C-alpha cells in the first residue's frame, strides 16, 4: 500500500527531513512511525499525502508512483486516504455533521447516501447525539473523534494519523487507538505517527523508528 524507495527529502534551507528511507507497508497492515520531534515523522506523512515531493527516490501509494502524479491528480489520490491530525483541522463554522460530510460532498456522493454514511461514521466514534453541535462546544477528545469520523466516512483504503493522541490523557488516548485498531480489523491500512512510546508499546504492531530522518528500527 505504501512503498518508499530510497526516499530523501532535503528542504531548501538545507535541513535534511528524510534520509534514504526504504520500507513497505502492506495492504491491511497497521504500523506506527515513532521518533523524537523533528525526526521526520510529519515529513513522511506529507510525502504520502503529496503535500510535499521527495528530493530523491520514489513513493508508491496503492501501486501508483506519486512521481507520475500531476498536481491535478493529487485531489483524487487524497480522496482515497483518510487523515487525522493532532490539531483536528475541523471547520468551526460548520456543525459536526457538516464537518464529517465534507469528504462525501467533495467526491460527489448522492445526497441521500451522505446522511446515512455520516451517521454511520459518527455512530462508530460514539458522537451520534452531537451531530448538530458546533465543534467549539466539544471536548478535545470529542473533537479528535470528529476528526476520525471525517477521516473514515468515505471509507478510504488508507488511514493516516499525525499525533492523534497528542493532547489527550492516557485513557482517552487508549480509546482513540482502539478505534484505529477497529478500522484496521475491517481491512483499512493504518499508519500512525506518534511519540507516545508507552502507549504504542502496549499495542502489538509494527513500529518504524526514525532518527534524524533515517530509519533506525523496523519491527514489532
Amino acid at each position, binding site marked *: 500500500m505504501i512503498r518508499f524507495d530510497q526516499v530523501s527529502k532535503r528542504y531548501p534551507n538545507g535541513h535534511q527531513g528524510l534520509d534514504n528511507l526504504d520500507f513497505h507497508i502492506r495492504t491491511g497492515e497497521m504500523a506506527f512511525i515513532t521518533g523524537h520531534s523533528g525526526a521526520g515523522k510529519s515529513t513522511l506523512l506529507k510525502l504520502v499525502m503529496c503535500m510535499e515531493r521527495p528530493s530523491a527516490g520514489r513513493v508508491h501509494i496503492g501501486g501508483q508512483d506519486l512521481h507520475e502524479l500531476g498536481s491535478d491528480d493529487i485531489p483524487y489520490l487524497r480522496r482515497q486516504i483518510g487523515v487525522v491530525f493532532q490539531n483536528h*483541522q475541523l471547520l468551526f463554522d460548520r456543525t459536526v455533521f457538516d464537518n464529517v460530510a465534507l469528504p462525501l460532498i*467533495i467526491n460527489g456522493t448522492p445526497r441521500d447516501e451522505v446522511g446515512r454514511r455520516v451517521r454511520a461514521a459518527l455512530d462508530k466514534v460514539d458522537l451520534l447525539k452531537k451531530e448538530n453541535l458546533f465543534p467549539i462546544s466539544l471536548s478535545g477528545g470529542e473533537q479528535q473523534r470528529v476528526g476520525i469520523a471525517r477521516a473514515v466516512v468515505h*471509507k478510504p483504503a488508507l488511514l493516516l494519523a499525525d499525533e492523534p493522541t497528542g493532547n489527550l490523557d492516557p485513557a482517552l488516548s487508549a480509546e482513540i487507538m482502539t478505534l484505529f485498531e477497529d478500522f484496521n480489523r475491517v*481491512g483499512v491500512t493504518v499508519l500512525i505517527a506518534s511519540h507516545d512510546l508507552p502507549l504504542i508499546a502496549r499495542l502489538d504492531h509494527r513500529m518504524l523508528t526514525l532518527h534524524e530522518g533515517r530509519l533506525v528500527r523496523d519491527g514489532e
Partner: protein
Amino acid sequence: MAENKRNPAAPRKRQSADTPVKKNPAPKAPKGAARSQRNWRHPLRSWLGSHRDSAQQALQRLRRHPLSSAMTILVMTIVLALPTGLAVLIGQVERLGVDWQRAAQLSVYLQETVDGPVAEQLRDSIAALDEVDEVQLLDKALALAEFQQHSGMGDALEQLSYNPLPAVILVTPNSIEGGASALQPLRDRIAAMSGVELVQIDLLWIERLTSILAMLERFTGGLAVLLIFALLLVMTTTIRLAIESRREEIQVIKLVGGTDAFVRRPFLYIGMVYGLLAGLLAWLLLAGGIAWLNTTVRQVAALYESGFELLPMPAGDGLLLVAGAVLLGLLGAWLAVGRHIRDIEPQ
C-alpha cells in the same frame, strides 16, 4: 517487513489488494469502496448538487456580511450606471439629430430678379435631377410672408418700398448618407444653373452636432473601459478578501481531496451574485434617473416647440446590462481565484 498477522483477509468489499491509483481518474468517481460505484450513475446530479451548494454559499455570504456586500454592490452599481447612463443619453440626443437630418435640405437662393415662371422652370429642372426627392418653391411674395411671420421684423420690412427677399427653392435630396460632402456635387450642379445666386447646405450644423456626439461617444467608451477596469479591481479585491477569510477552510478542503475547481466554485458564484444584484440596481437607477430627468427635458423641449422627451430604456438593453454585470462579476472573481487558490496549500 512484518505483515499484520491479525488481519489476514479483509472482509470488506474493497477491490483487490493494492488498488492502483489511476492517473487522471474521472471527476466525481472515487474508487476504493464498491458502494461508491453508484456515483457513476449520478455524475450530472452530483455536479448540479455541487453547483447548488456553491450558489447557496454565495447567498450565505451575503447574509453573513450584509454591510460589506452592500458596499461592494453599490460601488459596482455606480460604476455600471455611469457609462451606461451616458451612453443612453447620447443615444437619445442622437435620435434627435437623426430626426433633424431627415429634414436636411438644400436652400437654393435665386437671383433677386428671378421670380414667377422663370423660377418655376428652374424648380422643374431641379426636380428632374436624379438625386432630388422633392422640391418646393417659395416665390418672393411667399418668402416675404414667411420671413415676416417668423423673424418678428415684419414692421421693418413694411417700411421698404420693395421686396428684398429672393425666391427660394427648397430641395430635399434622395439620400443624406455621407453628409454634406456627399451632397457637394449636387450643390455644384444646381449652383451652375443660370438664375441661381447661392446654394446652402443646411446639413452642416447637424454634422457638427453629429461629430460632437461622436466625440462624446468616444469619451463614454473610454470612460466605460476605465470603469470596467475599476469594477474588476473592486471584484478581485472583494473576492481575495473572501478567500483570505476562508484560508483554513480551503486548506482542509484540499486536504480531503477537494479539487481547485471545487474550491473555486463558491467564489465564482459570489462574483456572479454580486454582478447580478449590481446590474439590477444599475438598471433601476437608470430607469429612475431617466424618469427624473424627463420632467425637465420636457420643459426645455416645450420651449423649443418640440415634443422631444427621453424614452425609457428598452428592456433588451436592461437585460444586456444585467448580463454584462454578471459576466464582469464572474470575470473579476475568476481573476482573483486564478492563482490565489492554487497557492493555498495545506501545511
